[in-house]
């Protein structure tokens, strides 16, 4: 895309054009495979089950909105949407509040042991925590409350945020902070007003990814949520029953679950790419 801006492209030999044409063909073929499932999902969400499985009429069908009305009326999706949003938002926010200062400290004071402990928490399969959690949370009486779900999601989000942010903080030259100290800014103020704004892309990346994790998490929800705190990944299972698979509802539900994530990612994708490559640049 940048090639257009550069005058040198005008004098490109034919073989270069062939090369870039080949490049785009490969890109489109890959895109086809990536996008087709989404396309199928969206198109199918407007079909009855009989139409959906009928490969002869993929585009040529009379659309129905019944699946979407089913999702909200019969399967009552409004509550899980609110639950999922609240849990993902609060757990991400709390993990940031704890994780950002922690990773700054790890980066500046070289606390490698602590960071390894955090990595180990991330490496242990989360399912191992579930039974102890269930026992502890039920003793505390917080099963089927936001508190238990948020705590559980934070356990994954926190190490994740720390591990993205440590290289980011390391990449910020110490001199910037030192000049702030010279000007009389305290440690806390320097962190808040100088270091954090410089790490914007990193923080956004970490926040989005931990939000997405929480949004999609299924395993914690099975055990720790209940009637009152059912999240979306649990609710969508309602379309599969012992004797019936409601594919139409499943597709409509999937569209509803995927849409916010796709929107957020599209709007903030520039930052995500910067954030993901941050550690790599430093080498």
């Amino acid at each position: 895309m940048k090639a257009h801006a550069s005058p040198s492209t005008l004098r490109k030999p034919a073989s270069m054009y062939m090369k870039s044409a080949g490049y785009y063909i490969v890109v489109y073929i890959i895109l086809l495979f990536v996008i087709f499932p989404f396309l199928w999902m969206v198109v199918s969400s407007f079909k009855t089950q009989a139409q959906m499985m009928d490969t002869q009429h993929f585009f040529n069908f009379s659309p129905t909105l019944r699946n979407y009305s089913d999702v909200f009326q019969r399967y009552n999706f409004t509550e899980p949407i609110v639950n999922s949003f609240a849990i993902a938002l609060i757990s991400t926010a709390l993990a940031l509040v704890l994780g950002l200062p922690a990773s700054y400290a790890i980066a500046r004071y070289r606390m490698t042991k602590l960071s390894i402990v955090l990595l180990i928490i991330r490496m242990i399969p989360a399912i191992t925590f579930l039974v102890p959690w269930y026992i502890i949370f039920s003793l505390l009486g917080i099963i089927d409350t936001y508190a238990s779900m948020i705590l559980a999601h934070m356990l994954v989000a926190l190490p994740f945020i720390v591990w993205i942010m440590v290289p980011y903080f390391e990449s910020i030259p110490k001199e910037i902070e030192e000049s702030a100290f010279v000007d009389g800014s305290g440690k806390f103020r320097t962190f808040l007003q100088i270091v954090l704004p410089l790490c914007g892309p990193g923080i956004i990346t970490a926040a989005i990814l931990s939000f997405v994790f929480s949004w999609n998490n299924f395993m914690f929800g099975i055990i720790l949520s209940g009637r009152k705190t059912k999240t979306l990944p649990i609710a969508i299972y309602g379309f599969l029953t012992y004797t019936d698979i409601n594919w139409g509802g499943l597709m409509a539900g999937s569209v509803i679950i995927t849409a916010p994530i796709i929107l957020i990612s599209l709007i903030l994708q520039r930052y995500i790419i910067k954030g993901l490559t941050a550690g790599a640049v430093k080498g």
Partner: protein
Amino acid sequence: MKKFGLMVLALLMIATLSVNAQSNKLAGTEIRVLAGSIPWTDYVKAKIPEFTQKTGIKVVLEVYPEEILRNKITVELTARNRDLDVYSMSPPQETMLFVKNGWLAPIDEFVKASPDYDIADYIPSALSGGEVGGKLYAIPLFTERPVLYYRTDVFAKAGLKPPKTFDELMADAKLLNNPSAKMYGFVERGAGNPAVTQFVTFLRGFGGDYQSRDYRTATLNTPEAIKAYQYYGEILRNYGPPGVLNMNWGETSNLFAQGLVAMRIDNDSQFGQVVDKNKSLVWDKVGFATVPAGPAGMGSCNVAPWALCIPSYSAKKAAAWEFISWATSKEMSLGAMQAGQFGARQSVWKNPQATKGLPADLVTAVQGNLGTKYSDERPVMVQVGKARDIIGTVIQAGIAGKTDAELKAIADKANAEFQQLLDQDYK
């Protein structure tokens, strides 16, 4: 006279009071029930206010899909949660494991104390799935059995009647199979683990079985079993759709609903998928028949896939039983049957009211099966899941078209592995 009247009135009042006190000794108790999302649950859920009004027992019902329910129950019972009073489980898959884990309370005492409940009304084979060592642990919610789904229009055109024997089934599948016209002769589950519960109809039809009748000996490599693998393999390989090795009931049901297969065997409980206008292109052309019998007779079974039980950790077992006995009473079973969930009580099958809304040939097909002696369609043991994987490999080898010698070798190997599991479970 006036005095006498007053006395009678007073006596009457006392009598009513004490009757109320009797039936309400559990009043105010709150029980927590975990159930799977099946039509039965929807029906019962709507009726719970009536139960609470009658008994004073409050019911907190949580409904989850099968997979989530299983996970939840496993964790709650591992953590010995005292706050769970009734849950639904899958007897053929779980009874032995759960009893071994100490997760089920026997309910014989409660049943004995409730003569009106009429336990003898249950289809015996349906009840036996919840029994271990002579004790009853679970009350079946509904029953299912394999039936033959067939296309009435295709059969009429070919001048055929639904097959009654394995030979007829093979011949019909061959005759109707016409892939160039997008019509396959026959389909049934081909994915290994899920196929175990359907393949058994053929295995027993040929005179084989997974285990000896005392459950301790593996019999996967008997000559009868080999014949069954070959038959099942031949009919699916030659007259089935491509990709059958990956198919579970959902896929075969879709193929049938799309009008791409002439015959399909799977459980009757799925009939809603193919006779619903929104789900099926052939909704008005579906016929049902009892599954064909083999040389050794009828091999199909009558299974109660879901049942209600009381966890041993519950502190409110009496109230829990009160709920179970109400939810599975004759009256409620009848209502659930009308809501589309085939009952486990004989009385509902004799009641013409119960089956009024159902396809007539489906009812006949089911009734043709009620006398079967088999109440299990999978290995009876603790490690059912592992055993199904092992058996699945032989079924798939049959479909893949292995030679007799190869098939025998694969069956021998599977038999040895299966025997090992049985030895562990029946020490």
